């Protein structure tokens, strides 16, 4: 059953990757990237059970869950404000 779940996760990663490559707007790509991140966390946890060393793999999954969120929030901040909070001269409203 772990194998089936792993294959389903892999197929979903492929689907999300296709969306990230096609994605007309930048938000589609961010959404797909976030989905790939979640699938990566689950995939690593399931892989731990497939291989038989879940204790080792679950730590990596935890770390990815935390760091992926930081990446997503940084990307969204740039997409909304145009930078990460640097003090700058007035910007020319660079919207996508």
């Amino acid at each position, binding site marked *: 059953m772990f*194998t089936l779940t*792993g294959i389903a996760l*892999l197929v979903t*990663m*492929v689907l999300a*990757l296709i969306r*990230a*490559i096609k*994605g007309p707007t*930048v938000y589609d*790509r*961010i959404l*797909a*990237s976030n989905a*790939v*991140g979640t699938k*990566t966390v689950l*995939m*690593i946890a399931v*892989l731990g059970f*497939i*291989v038989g060393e879940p204790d*080792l*793999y679950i730590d*990596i999954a935890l*770390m*990815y869950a935390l*760091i*992926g969120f*930081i*990446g997503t929030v*940084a*990307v969204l*901040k*740039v*997409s*909304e*404000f*145009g*930078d*990460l*909070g*640097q*003090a*700058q001269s007035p*910007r020319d*409203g*660079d919207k*996508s």
Partner: protein
Amino acid sequence: MLIETINIVLLGMLALTALAAVRLHDLFAVTIMFGIYSLLAAVVFVVLDAVDVAFTEAAVGVGISTVLMLATIGLVGRHEQRPVHRPLLPLLVVAVTGAALVYGTLDMPFFADPAAPVHQHVVPYYLGKSPEQTGIPNVVTSILASYRGYDTLGELAVIFTAGVGVLALLGLRRRKRPSKEHPTP
């Protein structure tokens, strides 16, 4: 069998992501594709049983490098310049170098061959003595943190200096005033 299939699918996805990142011209989208690339590479490392490399990839690839590239985009703008030179000569140089490197790998011993010279020199010593000398269960960790501890300390100092330099260049400071065109609700 299953692991090999997962490996092949993941490597194919890695190649697709890299090609998409090369073909895109919006640098912000390229940064996102690099994030996806790094996540996929991490799964490849986990499948290959290189847990410590997967940890490093998590911290560096997904976390730090994405944030640094985004900060750079905030400084330089998100659209790629048109290249001024034709790419043919650099492409030729890269192709010739790559072909020479691939030709060089033909002389290497077979992958994971136990009779290879690299597995004869100090590897049996480390593998045999590492548990009682250091008390660390993972051999890679014991080599990095104990046998080559000073090397690792030096690397950390270099990386820390580089990080401080990058932060000084990017100039991350607090936003002075909230921008007027997007009032936060």
